[in-house]
């Protein structure tokens, strides 16, 4: 993976830049010492590491603004970082770039139940929002697996999902406002506590922009009332086709479960060995279907789901009879990544989305690729919305095996695009999928996206080297090729 050629001049000026930033962020908020920079060298995609030029940890919006303004005026690159849990290398540092950590922005500023929202700083963890309001019967819906650690600012940058997306949406569907600081240091308020943000939907544009457009310094999230109850059903199937068919029939019957997850045999075994969730070990595919809502509704829908599952040939069925049992069902799924980590020295987590009906074809092809590359793969799958997480098992100590795993991963993602899907459902493009963007987008599509980047960051200083495989100068992207010509399509109807 190639990163843009580092600016040797910036590296040579490390001490000078540090001194300037210390004037903005006093005390220990500027980290220059190599050993102290080391913990920041990678994010959740640990296969890639780069030591940042230096690390700055501001505590106020004013400091963020001044840091960005300084970098803007001096042409220094900036990589924003929340909790550093990105699985796509979104917060991978640059050796000539300042790493801007938002970890000190860790306060919940306001909880407003009358408007069902909370105003929080970007370094607050996803789970901490729910923890702060759950005693009052509310929660924040998006629940990425890393929710205990990942920050809400990072969730905005990545448009994070989770198991409840099918019913409750991604981050972008659960925000009301953000405060951002643009690269030139301007603080901009977008949205508020009202439902529709005015003008162009800058809130929607910022969400999922992977730290390339601005730095999020405050977030207003929607809170939802905690459902009266939630129950889960475990359904075992002899084939993944039968499980996939069951998913389609549940949705076809008009039922949108709170969560609908699928695991294949290797994932079931790894999870069961790890947490003893009581999963059946003799099935090829396991579905966890969770229904949430008023008690009457949940009981009614559980019965309907069980009938549908019978019709699809489910060989085992278990309904959670207590909250404890429901959480046990989920414990295996939620621990699937570390569980796989126990059976393999390393694993590489992929994140494509496919039209659901393509699942059997994709799984078959994935098994063929597995034999071809000689690497095992375990699959967990947000079955309701078609988001696949194949976990490729490898050993980085075997020379060439990481590269092989990466190639296998690329092939899986290309396959996702080929069957009508996309490269990433919730982990983001980052550096990981950057060079695959061309399989999904034409050069014209990517250039138009980069023109949006130019509107926010004309110098390309914010998180360069992420998302786009080729960097273009904004002046070049702005050029127009105008051909004076004839009236188009003389034969098209006009009045």
């Amino acid at each position, binding site marked *: 993976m190639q990163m843009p050629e580092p600016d040797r001049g910036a590296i040579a000026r490390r001490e000078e830049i540090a001194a300037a930033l210390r004037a903005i962020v006093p005390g220990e908020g500027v980290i220059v010492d190599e050993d102290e920079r080391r913990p920041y060298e990678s994010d959740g995609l640990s296969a890639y590491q780069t030591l940042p030029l230096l690390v700055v940890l501001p505590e106020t919006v004013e400091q963020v603004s001044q840091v960005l303004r300084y970098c803007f005026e001096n042409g220094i690159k900036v990589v924003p970082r929340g909790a550093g849990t990105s699985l796509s290398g979104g917060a991978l540092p640059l050796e000539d770039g300042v790493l801007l950590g938002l970890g000190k922005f860790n306060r919940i500023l306001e909880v407003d139940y*009358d*408007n*069902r929202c909370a105003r929080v700083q970007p370094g607050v963890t996803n789970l901490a929002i729910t923890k702060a309001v759950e005693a009052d019967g509310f929660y924040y819906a998006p629940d990425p697996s890393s929710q205990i650690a990942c920050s809400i600012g990072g969730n905005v940058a*990545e448009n994070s999902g989770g198991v409840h997306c*099918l019913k409750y949406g*991604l981050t*972008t*569907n659960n925000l009301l406002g953000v405060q951002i600081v643009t690269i030139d240091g*301007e603080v901009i308020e977008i949205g508020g506590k*009202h*439902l*529709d943000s*005015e*003008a*162009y939907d*800058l*809130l*929607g544009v910022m969400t*999922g*922009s992977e730290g390339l457009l601005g730095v999020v310094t405050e977030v207003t999230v929607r809170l939802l*009332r*905690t*459902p*009266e109850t939630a129950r889960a059903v475990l359904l075992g199937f002899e084939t993944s086709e039968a499980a996939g068919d069951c998913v*389609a029939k549940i*949705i*076809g019957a008009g039922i949108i479960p709170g969560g609908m997850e699928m695991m294949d045999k290797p994932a079931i075994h790894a999870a069961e060995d790890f947490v003893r969730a009581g999963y059946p070990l003799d099935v090829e595919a396991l579905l966890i279907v969770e229904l949430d*809502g*008023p008690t*009457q*509704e949940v009981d*009614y829908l559980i019965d309907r789901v069980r009938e549908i599952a019978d019709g699809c040939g489910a060989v085992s069925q278990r309904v959670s009879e207590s909250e404890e049992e429901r959480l046990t069902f989920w414990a295996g799924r939620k621990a699937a990544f570390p569980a796989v980590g126990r059976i393999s020295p390393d694993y590489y987590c992929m994140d494509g*989305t496919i*039209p659901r009906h393509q699942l059997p074809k994709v799984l078959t092809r994935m098994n063929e690729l597995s034999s071809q590359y000689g690497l095992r793969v375990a699959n967990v799958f*947000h079955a309701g*919305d*078609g988001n696949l997480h194949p976990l490729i098992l490898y050993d980085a100590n075997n020379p060439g095996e990481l590269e092989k795993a990466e190639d296998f991963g690329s092939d899986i993602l290309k396959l996702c695009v080929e069957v*009508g*899907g996309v490269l*990433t*459902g919730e982990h983001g493009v980052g550096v990981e*999928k950057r060079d695959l963007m061309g399989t*999904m*987008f*034409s050069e*014209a*599509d*990517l250039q*138009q996206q980069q*023109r*949006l980047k130019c*509107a926010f960051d004309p110098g390309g200083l914010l998180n360069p080297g992420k998302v786009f495989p080729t960097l273009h100068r904004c002046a070049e992207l*702005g050029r*127009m090729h105008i*051909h*004076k*010509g004839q*009236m*188009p399509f003389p034969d*098209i109807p006009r009045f």
Partner: protein
Amino acid sequence: MTHFTPETPDQVREAVAWAVSEGAPLSVRGAGTKASVGRPINTSHELDLSRLTGITLYEAEELILQAWAGTPMSEIEAALSARNQRLEFEPPNYAALLKSDKGAGTLGGAVAANLAGPRRIKSGAARDHFLGFEAVSGRGEDFKSGGRVVKNVTGYDLCKLMAGSWGTLGVMTRITVKVMPVAEKQRTVLLATDDPETAVRALTEGLNSPYDLSGAAWVPTAIAARSGLSLISGQGSGVAALRLDGPGPSVEYRCEKLRQMLGVHGPTDELHSRNSAGFWREIRDVAPFSASDDLRAVWRLSTAPSEGAALYGSVMALPGAEAFLDWGGGLIWLAVEGAGDAGAEAIRTALQAHGGHATLIRGGADLRAAVEPFQPLKPGVRRLTEKIKQAFDPSGVLNPGRMYDGV
């Protein structure tokens, strides 16, 4: 005056490229049902998408539908209805409100205006169901974004940018949206009250309960009396309405619980299926201000729901004012006399205290030229808005000035 009516995306691109090369701005429209919204624009050429029609993909079990942008909403809704599905953002039909005879508009128009109905409180607006598009930029180039799957974070989310951009950034040619199953049953709990504060308190209690509302509105006495539904017009009072939908046993259970909960505020009643649907259609389509002889200006105010009652109180002082609330108090539909600035300054001053924005949805061309129909932008957002316009439509050939001067 050239009126382009392309039937293929290539023809759309050719028309825009011609406009760029001639420096001849285009007014871009679908069926033209919402042509009277926004600043009057001075273009002598029109790009009319109403012949770029047809559903190109509908996979009910995948919950997606893809169609050419000019496809009439009536065609989309008929296809969905045949599979017992719907667009969950409950797109309104403003034909009567805007005195248009062009039907319910097009899919492209619904998305470009980022429409949302009463279900906004639960399910969001068009933006939240908009998965992907193909378009022609103001540079005369094809581009696309998003996809056909519901979970996708590949690249910037340009769908959000196109939704609500009123054709000023690109001409969408094909659109993919998420669709959802129609709920098995619906019911509406009514609470008789004339007091907006009591109403907003009741709506808030409903929204903060676990009973999962899909609508939360209030109409004052005079508006209730004009309802086409005798169960509403016969109340002899203002009415707060809370909609429940979902599986049958669930709706019945929640309806009972909600009536118990709201009973402390006054007498309650309920509307069942057809009456319930009829009432919400009136709210959705702004029927209270849609009578053919109603020539008042109509504003749409979006604010924090808890501010709804207070804001209602301050705008009701305007001449000829009449208003009702949706979105639990977060949306105020306001009709006022169209004279002078039709209350623009007073409304926007009042909003400063409460947060949010106001859009003039109905008003004569003179009024729309004299006041800003879209909320004036704060400097930082204004600067980004201009640069985004520049990035997508550098020559300003697509609906120039429709939202803001110079954009």
